[in-house]
Structures are given as C-alpha cells and as structure tokens.
C-alpha cells in the first residue's frame, strides 16, 4: 500500500476508534448512534441468519439491472447524439444542467406508470444514472485522435470494423468512467427509491428498522451498504485506473 493509502486507512481507523469510545462512554446516546463494533456484529448477524437475504438480493438485482440499462442505453444515445452535431448542440446544455434537477421528485409519476415495485425503482435509478453514461460516451468519442481514424482508412476498414476495432477500444477508458459513475448513481438511486417505492430491499429494510426503533438492524444494514458500495467502487476503480494508464504518455 502507498504512503497515502496508509494515511487514509489511519484516518478512518482513528475516526472509528473515536466514535467507538464516544459511544461506549455515553457521550453519544445509544438512541442516536451505536458503536461501530455493534454495527459490525449486527451486520454479521443479519448475514448469518439469512433473514434479509431476499431483500439484499432484491437490491443487488435492481442495481445490476439499472446499471446495465443505463450503460447500454446511455452508450447508444451518446453515440447517436455524437453522430448528429446539430442535435448535440441543442441537447448538450440540457445534459450539462441535468443533475441540478432532483430526479426523485418524479416518484409519483413512476408509481402511476409502473406501480410500486422493481420497475419504478429501476426507472428512477436509470433516470439518475443514464446521463453520466451519455456524457462519458460523448467525451470518449470526442477524444479519439483523428490520426486513428486516418489509420483505419489506410487499413481500408469498413465503418463497422473501425467502430469495433478502433473507436471502441480507443474510447474505452472514458466509457469505463461512465460505467463506474452509472453504477454509483444506480446504487444511490435504488437504495433511495426503496425507501419510498418498495416493500422490499435493503433501503426498505433500513426504513422499516428506523420506523420500529431498531437501531441495531438499521446501522448494521447501513454498514452493509457502505461495504458493498466501497467494494464495488474499488473493483471498478482498479479497472478504471488500468484503462486510464494507457492514456498516460
């Protein structure tokens, strides 16, 4: 691990130890926050009992579906917008200001259209994450050096061969950044939507535990969400850094 990595780990550990101490000595009331060690025990209990496995799978499945739809559709729309410069000129300012709109306010619309359940959750998560993929696709396709397109012509490649063998790999570092962001936004979208749009899932279970004053379970589930999100982000970040390393010249 790098020196910066050790420093980062030390800061996190110091924070956990401080919170643990404050909780143990009663400086933080148990009704507000529980000690990190109790969170870990609660999370392990949840996993060991298997009681919430269906909810965990429900959430993970929705995150995967949402990410896949956002990435696929976002890439297709990005490529289409890129190929239509006039349409791009009209649409790009809207994309730039997209994240200033609180997407969650549309949840009643999604309930009316899809009802309560997975479909509405996925719709909100896709809405939240798709623009990151569109923007990354536009950036990626913009950044393909024109000399590579000339090279493709010298190799007498068809447009399809050029797209698959040159454009796609050349743009892949930027496209993968879009994949990473889409996954992160989809995760946020799914968990947050489950609070209001669902009768299942980790988000719903957290809300249920909160409403029933079950702090142990609520914090255990929160810790689980943090661990899953961090692990997924670390894995995607490792791939992202490898792809970005190709561009460093």
């Amino acid at each position, binding site marked *: 691990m790098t020196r910066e990595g050790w420093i980062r780990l030390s800061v996190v550990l110091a924070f956990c130890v401080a919170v643990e101490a404050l909780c143990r000595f009663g400086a933080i009331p148990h009704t507000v926050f529980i000690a990190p060690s109790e969170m870990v025990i609660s999370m392990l209990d949840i996993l060991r009992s298997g009681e919430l496995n269906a909810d965990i799978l429900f959430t993970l499945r929705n995150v995967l579906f949402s990410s896949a739809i956002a990435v696929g559709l976002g890439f297709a729309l990005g490529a289409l917008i890129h190929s239509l410069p006039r349409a791009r000129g009209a649409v790009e300012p809207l994309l730039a200001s997209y994240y200033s709109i609180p997407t969650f306010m549309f949840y009643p619309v999604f309930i009316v259209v899809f009802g309560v359940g997975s479909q509405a959750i996925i719709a909100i998560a896709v809405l939240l994450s798709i623009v990151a993929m569109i923007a990354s696709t536009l950036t990626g396709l913009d950044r393909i*050096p024109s*000399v*590579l397109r*000339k*090279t493709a*012509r*010298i*190799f*007498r*490649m068809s447009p399809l*061969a050029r797209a698959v*063998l*040159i454009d796609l*790999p*050349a743009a*892949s570092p930027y496209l993968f950044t879009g994949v990473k962001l889409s996954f992160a936004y989809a995760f946020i979208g799914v968990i947050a939507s489950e609070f209001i749009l669902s009768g299942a899932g980790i988000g719903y279970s957290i809300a249920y535990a909160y409403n029933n004053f079950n702090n142990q379970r609520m914090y255990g589930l929160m810790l689980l969400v943090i661990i899953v999100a961090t692990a997924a982000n670390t894995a995607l970040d490792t791939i992202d850094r490898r792809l970005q*390393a*190709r*561009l*460093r*010249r």
Partner: protein
Amino acid sequence: MIRAEDAPTTRFIPADTQVHARLTGVTHVYGAGPSGARLHALGPIDLDLKRGEFFAVVGPSGCGKSTLLDVLAGLAKPTDGEVTFEGHRVRGVPDGVGMVFQEDAAFSWLTVRDNVSFGLRRAGLEAAETARRVDYAIGFMGLRDFAHAYPAQLSGGMRQRVCIARTLVLQPRLILLDEPFGALDQQTRLLMGDELLRLWRETKATVMLITHALDEAAMLSDRVGVMSARPGVFIDFVETDWPRARDSRIVSDLRFGAITARLWDKLRIESLKSMGTTA
C-alpha cells in the same frame, strides 16, 4: 568551398518510364462546396514518382504538403486533376499503400506485437506467415525486448517505430511518411533516418516523405521537391545523386551542405511569403 559542378541538378519530371504514382494537374480547394469559405490549399501539381525512389517534399508551413500526401493516399479527393497509382486512378486508399503519420498512431490498447500484427490479422494471413513477418519487423525496428509492452510504456521514438513496423509488415509498395520524426529529438531523428533508409533498401518500396527538416530531406532522399507558399506548387526539384547504400554519415559530405543550402535558398523566400513578409 562548394564548386558549381557540386551543386545538385534540377529536373522537374523524371525521364524514367517506370512511373509508380502520378499526379496530373492536381488541385485541392477546401470548402469547394456550395457553402463555406474557399481555401485554395494546393496546386496545380504535376508530379511523377519513380518506382523505388525516395522522394522528399519540403515547403513552408501551411503550403499543403500534408494535403498533397492525403490526395496521393486517396484520403482526400482532389478538387481538380487526376492521381494514378500503378496505372490505376486513385479512388479511395489503394491496395499497396502504407502511411506513417507525425502524430502518435500506435493503438494504445494493444501490445507492440499486436500493434504490428494488426493489419496482417485483418488481412487473414496464415498464422505462421504473420508470426514470421511480425518477428522480422519487430527485430528490424529494434523492438524485440518490448514486444509485449504497451505503447504507454515506450518513448515517442519507439512508438513511432511501432507504427513504421506496422506499416512495414504489410509490405506496401508505396510508403507515405507525413513528418514521421517531427516530434523526435535530433539524434533520434538521425538514427530513425538510418532505419528508414535500411527499410527502403530492403523493401524496394517507393517512399514519399513530407518533412520540415531540410537536413532530413537532403540526407534521406534521391530527389527533393520544394513547394511554394500556399497554394502549394513545386518550384524546384533537387536531385541528390546519393548512392542507394547510404546512411546518416553522409551529413559530413561536402555536397550535403550544397544541397541543404540550395533547398534553403528556395525555401527562405517562400517561408517569408507564408509569414506575410518579403524582408
């Protein structure tokens, strides 16, 4: 002291009948369509490239040198005139033409070996023959120790060698070089020039090199074409009369200075014109 008889000779169209590529009355105007500002970049150009010759083009910035190369490669359509390669009219990139660019065109997602074999794999060449040609090209360009490295791990000069090797394996009959050493330092350029001369001798290909460097043109070529300021036309052709077996050591030859001086004599006025001054 440079004697008059040492000065290079001028010949506008080679008398040789072995014409490999020919440009006849070629002009190129950007924005020649119904809308947009017109920019007359090139021509009219008449040029014959002899089979197997090493021809270099020098000219002031913006005179249309790269446009000339694009037109010859079939990457750009001439506004007027005709381009032929091996007797056939050029419409699109013809078979047998390879091109190396000034910009880094190595595929960053492929290893050196995969970069070099890219064109051969696309052509569906037999695996054993592909391996043989790739091994040869990688060895020829001094990349054997880096065969499994990615371009990001190589220097600018080595990445350019990857692009040359990628062109070499396809055994092109006409190699077009658009300032391939423009981004390299002087020592590396001289050494790359030696490698290029070796490649030219071994492949017997016709080579057309675009360069800003007069010494590079004088050292590498059989013939140098000097272009005017935009719209670029040839204002002089200088025959170097170097032996085919030559390398960068010819820079110490007295005639090298005479050739470079003559190129600069022609080019100086055109460069001043392109800068908007006649001083």
